[in-house]
């Protein structure tokens, strides 16, 4: 293993553009031949991010009804049976943000419904992250949206419907980028 790397990189090292003595520039430019190629298929279990357009949403679906059962079993202990917040964050309600003490919840503050799926899938439930199936993540996302009166009781969330959900505070952010 070591020997293989040595020969590979020593072969490449000859073609490296070398040694720029500026403190803000790396002193070696060009490839050094370290690392191993990997396919997107091999990365699949890590490649869990979901973008605001829905890119990355997996197959599967979840209903509000299925989400309610799951939420009461798995989530309510910390977030409250109505998402009112107990040990952890409040998820529901909150009202206007232009007050002296604004209440930030999924319903009042989060600009994208896709973020709910992404976050539950990667980080929830707190005691065993990344243990839910995609159907379960869709279902719990649906139930949180339903509790916030953003989707209908009969709604089903999947890769097609979730990105179409418009959050109440969708236009509440001003990107600064500096």
């Amino acid at each position, binding site marked *: 293993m070591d020997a293989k790397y040595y020969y590979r990189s020593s072969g490449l090292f000859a073609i490296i553009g070398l040694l720029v003595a500026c403190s803000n520039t790396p002193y070696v430019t060009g*490839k050094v031949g370290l690392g191993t190629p990997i396919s997107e298929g091999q990365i699949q279990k890590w*490649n869990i991010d979901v973008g605001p*357009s829905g890119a990355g949403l997996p197959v599967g679906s979840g209903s509000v009804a299925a989400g309610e059962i799951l939420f009461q079993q798995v989530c309510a202990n910390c977030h409250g049976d109505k998402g009112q917040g107990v040990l952890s964050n409040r998820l529901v309600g909150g009202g206007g*943000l232009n007050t002296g003490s604004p209440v930030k919840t999924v319903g009042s*503050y989060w600009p994208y419904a896709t*973020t709910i799926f992404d976050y539950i899938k990667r980080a929830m439930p707190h005691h065993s992250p990344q243990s839910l199936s995609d159907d379960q993540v869709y279902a719990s996302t649906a139930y949180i949206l339903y509790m916030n009166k953003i989707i209908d009781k009969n709604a089903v969330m999947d890769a097609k419907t979730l990105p179409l959900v418009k959050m109440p505070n969708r236009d*509440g952010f001003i990107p600064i980028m500096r």
Partner: protein
Amino acid sequence: MSNDKTLTKRRGFLKASLAVGTGVSGALTSNSASAQSNTFLEIDPWTKTQGATFVNPPYGLPSKYEKEVVRRLPNPAPIFLTASRTPIQNLHGIITPNGLHFERHHAGVPDINPDQHRLVVHGLVDRPMIFSMENIMRFPSESKIYFMECSGNSAAELKRSANNTAQQIHGLISCCEWTGVRVSTLLQECGIKPQATWVLAEGADGAAMTRSIPLSKMLDDAILAYAQNGEMLRAEQGYPLRLFLPSYEGNMSIKWLRRLKLGTEPWQTREETSAYTDLRENGKALQFTFKMEVKSVITQPSGMMKLKSKGFYEISGIAWSGNGKIRRVEVSTDAGKTWQEAMLQEPVMDKSLVRFRYPWVWDGAPAVLMSRAVDTSGDVQPTMEALIKTKSANTFYHNNAIQPWRVAANGEVTNGR
């Protein structure tokens, strides 16, 4: 005040006096309460015996007399802990010892064997790649001293005077030498597709913590850091590999880094929408406010300390700016009515803490001490009133306001917010 004027009449005089160690101290001895002792010195017991042996312990620890100098949790501590704070009032110079670096975790500290850790780079690259730690540590490397500040540092003070000590109020700041590989070096290995503009960085912790970072920042000065102050990262700082983004909100320097994905727009992750966004008075929130702004705080003397007697004190503190270097720090001992320039300890480095010092003779009257930093971009550290007016008290993040410390006639120092 007259003492102040005597000491700092001209900056040249001040610098010269400090440099040679005369003048200032000469002017102060008559006023200081030097210990009058009638006792005759005896030989101390520790002088009359052999001391403890070597490697005791193999990894050295601070003196037992320094056991109060530790990171501390908020009091009362929340059920789900979020952060511990650096005891900045007990530190000297600019480097934060590794064991005192503040912590901010989103799902605790994972236990990662470096032989099992790997970094994947994929998305809009020519060649998706996986790197072992052995690979990463063979790349060309660099070491830089940079500050890191949590964007929630000093947040509670926006609403009210919420805490007492410099550690409690401002302890989410640190400064270390970070060693690692430039992100640009590693990305070059994979080849960047021309349409890529953003990078998602993801941790291997139980939060799989993610932030979207402009590719331009990644190619500018971002580091894949594996070492801190000369040794491998501490577990709580991302062992064995973290991203380090100089001058940006601390949370963006993703710890336990396992994945970089190149894309064309921000991912709008939880940590850049519901958290780490800056709410304004009108209910709109600023998003992607990356840079930590010009700031300073007096650390000695500071909250909960007590001046034992009238006389000389060195007012000392730290200053920093995400815009670049600190140009000047001014100190006021009269609640901001008048300001005098402090001495900056060289070297003054880019995106690093700088230590400032100012000689002060306390006359025993109540005083309010403040520091105000100015950076090379011309930004001036604001007062709390000015900050709340422009940012709103609801902003929570990015509080860089001037910190007043109130000195009472009995010498007790308290939060002057």
